[in-house]
């Protein structure tokens, strides 16, 4: 089931077309939104929230039409890219206030604020003024205010912005945890492909306001022709010659790792590789179906 569906949507800033005849179904789970700067990722998020009015097309979020933005914002949690807080408030007051703005009763909002702050790792700092928080803590409190009212869809705009490596790992773990098995779908917008790879199951690639690629990350990483990668104990020119004779041309070699074209199934390829290696008395350290990195897939999509 799609958490958001957009049909031929066009969004403009004056004469500049930010989203151009954009059609997409965003499925449940954790979905990554990829694209170079100015591709339209943030515009897409802001359109889903009703901040921007499309000039053409239609769409819905969690079954609610885009025009009913109040209902959408109640069902959705939004973590903006920019650092944001309410001046003069402690962490717990800020998150409880966000809950109240979403429609929670005051007592429930306060109780829930304590819970989500603990969950986001800000339990100790919850009574401190948000203005005294470090960058990492501010990222966490943005996540806390976004999930306090129990949204069904979470929109995260660059959630790891400005975080150190440890903070980044922790934030990604939080995102991954809430998006798997908790009944909460997440749309993560990021430039950092490893972040998307770590947290998301599916990705959308946007370029110049158009959808260029969509699918499961594992499918996006697949290489045409199902080649396999074989890692030997040491480089062997004889192996290279014999495996070509066995019907598996070498696509490229890097030290002792060979990427080979596979004529049939991976099992069949494995048999041929093992047979060739046995003849030459070589050890096979690794064998797997070759795949490209997400970065390669992304670059191919945008080029």
């Amino acid at each position: 089931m799609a958490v958001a569906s957009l049909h031929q949507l066009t969004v403009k800033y004056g004469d500049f077309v930010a989203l151009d005849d954009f059609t997409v179904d965003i499925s449940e789970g954790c979905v990554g939104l990829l694209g170079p700067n100015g591709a339209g990722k943030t515009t897409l998020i802001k359109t889903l929230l009703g901040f921007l009015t499309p000039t053409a097309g239609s769409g819905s979020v969690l079954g609610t039409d885009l025009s009913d933005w109040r209902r959408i914002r109640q069902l959705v949690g939004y973590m903006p890219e920019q650092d944001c807080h309410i001046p003069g408030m402690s962490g717990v007051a800020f998150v409880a206030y966000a809950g109240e703005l979403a429609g929670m009763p005051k007592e429930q909002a306060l109780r829930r604020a304590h819970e989500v702050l603990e969950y986001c790792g800000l339990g100790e700092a919850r009574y401190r003024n948000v203005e005294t928080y470090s960058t990492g803590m501010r990222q966490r409190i943005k996540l806390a205010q976004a999930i306090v009212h129990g949204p069904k869809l979470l929109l995260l705009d660059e959630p790891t912005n400005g975080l150190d490596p440890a903070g980044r790992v922790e934030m990604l773990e939080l995102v991954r945890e809430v998006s798997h098995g908790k009944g909460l779908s997440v749309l993560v917008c990021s430039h950092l492909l490893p972040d998307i790879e770590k947290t998301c199951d599916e990705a959308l690639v946007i370029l110049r306001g158009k959808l260029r690629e969509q699918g499961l990350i594992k499918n996006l990483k697949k290489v045409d022709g199902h080649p396999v990668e074989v890692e030997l104990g040491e480089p062997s020119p004889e192996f290279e010659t014999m495996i070509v004779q066995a019907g598996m041309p070498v696509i490229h070699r890097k030290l002792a790792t060979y990427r080979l074209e596979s004529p049939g199934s991976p099992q069949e390829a494995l048999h041929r590789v093992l047979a060739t290696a046995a003849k030459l008395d070589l050890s096979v350290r690794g064998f797997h179906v070759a795949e490209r990195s997400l970065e390669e897939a992304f670059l191919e999509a945008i080029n």
Partner: protein
Amino acid sequence: MNSPIADLSYRNYDGPLSAPGFRWWVVAKTMMGMAIKKRGFWVWATMGAYWYFILLVMFYFMDTLTGGQINLMKQVIWPDQFVNAFSLAQIVLFSLALLIGIGSISNDRRANALLVYLGKPCSKADYLFGKWVGICLPISIVAAVPAVLFYFYCLMSYRTYGVIGQDMFLLPKILLASFVPGFFHASLCLGISSLFDQGRLAGGAYAGIYFISNLITKAIQVAYIISEHPHGRHSVGTPNPSLANAYYFAVDGIQIGLAKIIFQSDGGQLIVGSPKGGNGAIPIPSIGFILPVYFGICAAAIWIAYVRVRPVEVIS
């Protein structure tokens, strides 16, 4: 038994959520809550009643020390007392507006708080109206409470001296006049605050407008008094009526003008003594002049705020 908070895993919230809409009250309530937590609020709120304390002391001594034919209490013009107290509280109410209201939007802009507000089911109108109420109500209450308490004290102690007799609608007039500064400061604070990204700059701009406009209009008042008595205290001149209207072209002047219209009094009697129209009091302005200016300024300020508050900055 473990506290629920000991379970650090994420759990969904399945509790009640009110229907989206009317979030302005949440904004207003929080703003007022933050205002009353400031120590300065209570200091200024207390200072706002200073003229009523002076009146209390003066009336007590006038009532107990004078009597018979020269009982000074008989000369008191009650609406004048409220107009004067209202005028003298202006600087305090302005300070209060600076304290609780001027940073309301600029500080939110600095902290990108608009994304938090507008990312929830809270519209721009909810946000602005909530902020407006959050400034207007505290200022109005600070203006109303000492005036109402003073009115009831006088009603109980000096009823025979015309508290009701002079104007039986004095209490509703007091309540109405108390909303004049709240309404005006709240609107101006929102408009000016939305033009800046820092509360201090917005405060500086508002203070500049307040004091410069006051300086000019006070100079006009002096010119008016001189034109009233061109050759000393006992001479009588013909003051220029346009000078009188110019006095009201200030942040507090316009509010004083409206208060004079509400009380139908020029505030000429300071405590006791001079009759109505004395002491160089500026005459009551025309309602056709003050009301459009007052509401025009408020509407313009709110319009500026409405235009300036945006969830998405579009650079053309």
